[in-house]
């Protein structure tokens, strides 16, 4: 069935690389001090997520992830970083409260991670997928977007329009000529 032997192992290796990219990107995004590195971590994480979407039988979403998150969201955040100066305040000596708060945040996130992992591992997921009614390809997706979900599709375009106008209205006042 496979075109060449070992294709399955090759895919597994690529999967591990993609997974490490996503997880490492997420770690960089939340743990660095400088915000610009954090944005780069987010972009890395989104590249990894795009690979995961590819493994989940959805190349269209993989491309959309790169296009929207890496191409639009991260670039917009970079612009905001250039306009404001958002670096974390320099830490000379951390106070006990700050340390305690960081430890508490770490503990809370570890608890969340452990609980969710346990939940996902213990659940007896059905091994074989139920009967498929479509194959989930791009033409099927397009037909679904313009027939079943056409109202939601129009609403999301309206939301985006309102968001653009709202962003202009909010960011406009206060600017003066030099």
């Amino acid at each position, binding site marked *: 069935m496979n075109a060449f032997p070992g294709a*399955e192992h090759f*895919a*597994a290796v690529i*999967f591990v690389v993609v*997974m490490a990219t*996503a*997880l490492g990107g*997420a770690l960089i*995004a*939340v743990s660095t001090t400088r*915000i610009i590195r954090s944005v780069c971590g*987010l972009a890395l*994480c*989104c590249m990894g*997520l795009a690979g*995961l*979407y590819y493994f*989940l*039988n*959805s190349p269209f979403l993989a491309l*959309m992830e790169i296009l*929207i*998150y890496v191409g639009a*969201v991260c670039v*917009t*955040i970079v612009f*905001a970083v250039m306009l*404001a100066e*958002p*670096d*974390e305040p320099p830490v000379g000596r951390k106070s006990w409260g700050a340390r305690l*708060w*960081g430890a508490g*945040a*770490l503990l809370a*996130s570890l608890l*969340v*991670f452990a609980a*969710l*992992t346990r939940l*996902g591992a213990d659940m007896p997921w*059905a091994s074989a997928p*139920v009967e*498929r009614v479509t194959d*989930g390809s791009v033409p*099927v*997706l397009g037909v*679904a*977007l313009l027939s079943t*979900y056409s109202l939601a599709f129009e609403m*999301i375009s309206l*939301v985006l329009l*309102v*968001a*653009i106008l*709202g*962003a*202009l209205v*909010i*960011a406009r006042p206060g600017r003066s000529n030099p």
Partner: protein
Amino acid sequence: MTTIHHSPGVYLTIAAFLFAAGVYGLLRRRTLIGMLIAGELIFSAASLNFMTFNRFLAPDPAVGQVFVLFIMGLAAAEVAIALSIIIAVYRNYRSINPKELSELNG
């Protein structure tokens, strides 16, 4: 033969990790943009969960993809609004440290 990328548990664990990282960043960050980035991670975790169940358990694989597309659209809109608010705040306060934005804090 089940390899690593054919089991839903792996994807769910990755999504759980992304969510936990987002929660950690949201709690720990002291700048608004950092919190926004952590929020994006949480969005990504939700999308990955949707795509996992869409791939392994859903009868119609188009549904989850459409949902994730809508999540991406909403996230883009949210980022645009949030960043414009952040820039407006920075212009007024010369800072985007949430601790200093405390005019109403008696």
